[in-house]
């Protein structure tokens, strides 16, 4: 059933009784070609691209809770590809390009709003770093601009533009194609399209163990809903990657942290672009419903609790008010946290694990949402062909042994 204004009209006449389930809820088969652990954006996208790109639809997505309930439903919905190293730039820009066609591809409006993103410079040193960043992006074939103070001021008039501000705005790095997308819609869109192509989506089904052959090769999963066999298994469980790795008998260079996000009560439009300030320690955008969506750095101790520390919330909001003093009287409506899988060089791991037949997509840390399409595309590729997609080649587990990091965070300069 196609989603369109006409289908809505037909619905209006029939009390909307004609709509079919967005995704099926089948009873799980005993065997599949491929099993995917994790029903978030990456897992659902992997299933979709397996069916769409590789014609493999005898696939099941095994989700512990409800689809899109993990980080996919807990992030600040920003999509961008302003990365410095060619390997990362290609990866994230491929994802942004997929996002640009996703509403049509999935026939599901993900509300991709390319309203632009501006990273703020508060010192001449910041401007120098941004100059490197912009030039590197252009070298990678990604449009990016250095903005003057005045240009930033017109894009985000709510910013404190006085030169006496605690974080004076001296300019910014802009990626016009960046912006936001509705996170739930990405998960549901992929789920609906994958289900339509034959993929089974199984919720409320927790993986309790891996079934292995004598030689260690993976044969399937033990779950709260019984044993399910498959030739290949892909893990896309973000913050829970280590939990699954342990079940499969290996360790990852991953530590799970709470990453907070929060929204204010909805108000009339006040901010029409995404503002990032690494220096002040906060980033802000306004949702289509009118809520200010605010995020920042990690709670810096390992945690699987989707709550977050109040002291960090205070720091994030103080940073936000340092940038946007006029938000002071708005009220915080909701605060929560995702569990993000952080690795040393804040770049992903997409490829084989020490267990033959078991592949993993993790390590996205604080930047997983923007990478859902490419994470799915590349994990699907290795699951289907057994060989890494060329975009994923630089992002293997082995780099933590050889030292060939792709350290984006570090490249933007340690504190100076």
């Amino acid at each position, binding site marked *: 059933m196609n989603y369109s204004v006409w289908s809505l009209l037909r619905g209006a006449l029939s009390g909307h009784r004609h709509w079919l389930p967005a995704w099926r809820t089948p009873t799980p088969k005993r065997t599949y070609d491929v099993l995917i652990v994790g029903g978030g954006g990456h897992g659902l996208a992997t299933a979709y691209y397996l069916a769409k790109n590789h014609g493999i639809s005898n696939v099941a997505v095994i989700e512990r809770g409800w689809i899109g309930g993990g980080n996919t439903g807990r992030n600040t919905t920003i999509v961008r590809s302003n990365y410095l190293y060619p390997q990362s730039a290609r990866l994230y820009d491929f994802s942004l390009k997929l996002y640009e066609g996703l509403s049509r591809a999935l026939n599901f409006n993900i509300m991709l709003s390319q309203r632009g993103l501006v990273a703020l410079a508060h010192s001449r040193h910041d401007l120098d770093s941004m100059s490197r960043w912009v030039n590197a992006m252009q070298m990678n074939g990604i449009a990016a601009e250095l903005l003057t103070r005045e240009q930033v001021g017109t894009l985000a008039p709510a910013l404190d533009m006085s030169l006496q501000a605690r974080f004076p705005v001296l300019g910014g790095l802009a990626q016009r194609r960046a912006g936001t997308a509705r996170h739930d819609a990405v998960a549901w869109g992929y789920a609906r399209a994958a289900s339509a192509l034959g993929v089974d989506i199984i919720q409320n089904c927790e993986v309790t163990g891996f079934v292995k052959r004598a030689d260690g090769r993976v044969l399937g999963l033990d779950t709260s809903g019984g044993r399910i066999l498959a030739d290949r298994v892909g893990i896309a469980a973000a913050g829970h990657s280590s939990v699954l790795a342990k079940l499969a008998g290996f360790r990852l260079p991953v530590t799970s942290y709470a990453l907070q996000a929060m929204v204010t009560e909805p108000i009339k439009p006040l901010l029409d672009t995404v503002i990032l300030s690494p220096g002040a320690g906060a980033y802000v955008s306004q949702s289509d419903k009118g809520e200010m969506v605010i995020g920042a750095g990690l709670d810096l101790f390992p945690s699987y*609790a989707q709550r977050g520390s109040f002291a960090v919330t205070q720091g994030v909001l103080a940073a936000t008010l340092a940038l946007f003093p006029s938000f002071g009287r708005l009220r915080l409506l909701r605060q929560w946290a995702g569990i993000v899988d952080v690795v040393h060089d804040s770049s992903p791991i997409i490829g084989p694990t020490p267990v033959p037949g078991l592949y993993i997509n993790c390590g996205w840390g604080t930047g997983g949402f923007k990478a859902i399409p490419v994470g799915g595309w590349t994990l699907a590729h290795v699951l289907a062909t057994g060989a890494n997609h060329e975009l994923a080649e630089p992002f293997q587990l082995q780099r933590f042994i050889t030292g060939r990091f792709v350290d984006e965070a570090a490249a933007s300069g340690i504190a100076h």
Partner: protein
Amino acid sequence: MMQLNCPWCGPRDENEFACGGSSHIARPGLAASDQVWGEYLFFRDNPKGVHRERWRHVQGCGQWFNVARHTVTHEVLSVYAVTDAPPKLG
């Protein structure tokens, strides 16, 4: 915001401390293989359960100490010296 019981200064709010990651990780010598060295630096249990980690009371006495903490409930089961072996937890 947690409250940690610094062995010297007593219970203090979490924003006075800094977490130093997992404890009880033996440091291999120069002769270690790349694999062993890589695992020492980066590979962790990252348990969803009791985690033995070390904290420093940065804005207090400046001392490091070990904590056994549950990474979901944040319940602190034990606080013990950096040089102590991990206690058996009931």
